[in-house]
C-alpha cells in the first residue's frame, strides 16, 4: 500500500484515478493546483505523485520542476492527454510518463513499476 497524491484540475479525472487506485489498495489524496500540491506534500509524506501536465492556471511542467526541487525523494508520474510532451526535456525530470486513457490498466501498471523501483532506490527509468 502506498500514499499517492493526484494532481489534476479535472475533478472527474481525479474521481476516476482515485477509484482505480483506491481499489488497488492505495491511499489517495487529491490536489487541483500547485498551491494544494505543496500544502499536501509539506503536510504529510507521500510515496508517489501523479501529475497532469496541463493545469488550468499553470503548466504542469513548471509544477514538476518545483516538486523535484523541493521533494527530490518523491517519484512523479507525468500524466497527460498529449503524446507530444514526451519529448519536452523538462518531462525527463519525471520518473515516468503515462498517456491518459480510459483504460486505466496502463496507469496502474506504471504505478506498480515506479513503486517497485522505489523499493530499490538509486535506479531511474531509462529515457523513453
Amino acid at each position, binding site marked *: 500500500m502506498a500514499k499517492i497524491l493526484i494532481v489534476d484540475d479535472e475533478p*472527474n479525472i481525479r474521481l476516476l484515478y482515485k477509484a482505480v487506485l483506491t481499489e488497488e489498495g492505495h491511499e489517495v489524496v487529491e490536489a487541483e493546483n500547485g498551491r494544494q500540491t505543496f500544502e499536501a506534500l509539506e503536510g504529510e509524506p507521500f510515496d508517489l505523485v501523479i501529475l497532469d501536465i496541463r493545469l488550468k492556471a499553470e503548466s504542469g511542467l513548471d509544477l514538476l520542476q518545483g516538486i523535484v526541487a523541493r521533494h527530490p525523494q518523491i517519484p512523479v508520474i507525468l500524466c497527460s492527454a498529449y503524446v507530444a510532451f514526451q519529448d519536452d526535456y523538462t518531462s525527463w525530470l519525471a520518473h515516468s510518463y503515462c498517456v491518459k*486513457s480510459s483504460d*486505466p490498466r496502463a496507469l496502474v501498471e506504471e504505478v506498480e513499476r515506479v513503486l517497485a523501483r522505489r523499493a530499490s532506490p538509486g535506479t531511474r527509468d531509462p529515457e523513453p
Partner: protein
Amino acid sequence: MARVGDSYCWLIADDPAACPYLGAQEAHLLSDVRRRNREKCVGCEELRHDLAELRRTGGPLLEALTAILDEALNRCRPILRTLQIKEELLDILRHLSHSLQLALDPDEILYKGLVAFTAGSSLGFNRGLALLVEEGMLCGYFALGPRDGEEAARIWQEVNERGTTLADLLQYSPEVFAREREKFRPWLERFRFALSESPFREAFSLPIPHAPEAGRVLEITPEAPLPEVLREFYREATFWIVPLLSHEERPLGALLLDNFLTERPISAEDRLAMELFAMEIAVALERGLAHTELREKVEMLEEAYRRIQEHQQTIIRLREEAAVAEMTLQLTHTIKNPVVAIGGLARHLHKKLDEHSPYRRFTAAIAQEASRLEETVQDFVKFAALKYATERHPVDVNGILELLAHEKMETLRHGPPIRWHLDLAPVPPILADERQLYHCVENIVNNAIEAMSDGGDLFIESRRSDDAILIIVRDTGPGLTEEAARNLFKPFFTTKPTGSGLGLYTSKQIVESLGGELQLLRQLGQGCEVVIRLPIPEAPSETSTEGEFGARRAS
C-alpha cells in the same frame, strides 16, 4: 594625241575621238573644255608634252608657266590625299556612329569600336586591344587583329578577295566576338593594371589642363618603361593608348592600338580622328555599361522579390502549422479528458456491477464508444503532427524497419499468429524525419496485420533501385476489393468498424512529401503488397556514405 590638225586635243570641244581618257560618266567634259582642262588635263602626259613643245617654240613665258604648273601640282597632291583620307575617316565615323546608336551590349560596342580603328586605310591600325575598368582595375577584355604577319596577310587577302566593306566588318555577332577574344585570351587574362600605374596614370590624366591641345592620345615608344606583361606583348612596337572616359571624365576603359607589322607612324590628324572615335565609343560604352548594370539590378530585385514571396509563403505555412498545432492541443485537451473520465468511470462501474446485471451491457457500450472517440483523437493528433513535421536528416531505413518489426512483434505477442519475414538489402540513407517515416511504415504494417485476423505471413523488405530505395510490405490476407483498393489511400476511408481512416492517407502524404510514391501492387485473393519508393538524395551528405548500413536479415 596632242596635236589634232591645227588644233590641240585639249582645245577640241566637239570630237569624242580627241580625248581617249574620258570615261563613260565623263562625256559632259567634252563640251566643257575649261572644266576638262581643270579635272583631266592637269595631270595628262599629252598636255605636258604639248607644253614642252610650246616652251621650245614659244619662248620663256611658257617655260615659266610650265614650272608654276608643276609646282602647283606637287602642292595639290598631299592635299588631295588628305582630303581622301578625311573622307574615309568621315565615312567610318558615320558608319560607326550609326552602328553604335542602338547597341547596348558592351561586347558589341567594343567590337565595333576596334573594327573602326583597324579597318580601311585611314587609321587602319594593325591591332586593337580593349581594357575595361572592373573594380578599380584595368582588365584585358577584348582584342582584334592578327597575331602575326602570316595571319595578317591571310586576313587582308580575304578582305580584298571578298570585297568586304566596312558595313560588313561592322556586322556584330557573339560568335565572331568570342572567336576573336579566344585568340588573345591568354594575354587578356594577364592584363590587369592599376589605374594609377604608368602608363595608364598618364593616359588618364591627359590632356594636361594648361595644354589641352596635347590631346588624349598617348604614344608609347619601345623605350618607355612598361608593366612587364605589356612589354612582353608589344616588344619593339610603338603603340598608342586612347582613354575611354564617361561624360563625367570617369575612366571606363582604354583602347591600345598598334602597327606592329606595318610600323606606320600616326599624324596629328590621326590623333584627332582617334579622339573622335574614342568619344563615340565611350558614349556608347557608358550607356551600355549602365544598361548592363541596370539589368543586373533589376534581376537582383526580381530575385529578391521572389524570395520575399517565398518567405511570405513560408510564414503563412508556419502560421497555419502553429494554428493547427494549437487547435490539436485544444482538441486533445477538451475532448480527451472528458472521454477518459467517461470511459474510465464506465469501466470501473462495469467491474463493480454484478456479473449478471443487465446494466453491464450499457457500461460496456459506454466504455467501447469512449475508446473509439479516444482513438479518433489520437489519430487526428498523429495526422496533424506528421503533416507538419519537416526536419530531415539522413535516415537509416533498415534501422527503422528493424525497430518497427521488433516493437510490433512485442505488442502483438498475444494477437493472431503472424510470421515475420524481414529481408533488408544494403540501402543508402535517405533524407527524412525518422519518426515520420516510422509512423508512415507503421500505418501500412498495421493495416497488413489487421488484414490477417486469422494470422499469416508478413514480409517487410528493403531494396535498392537505380535512384531510389524501395520499402515493401506484403501480407497474406484476403486482399482488397477493387473499390477498397481504389480508395485505400483516400482520407477518412476505412473498412474497419473503428478507425479514423487517416492512417494510410497519412502514410501516402508522408511518402509524397519526401518526393516518393506509394503503390499498391497485389489485390484480391492474394494478399496485398504496398511498395514505398523513396528517392536517394543526389549529393550524399557528409555523415552518410552508400552502403554504410549493411544488409541485415531476420525472420
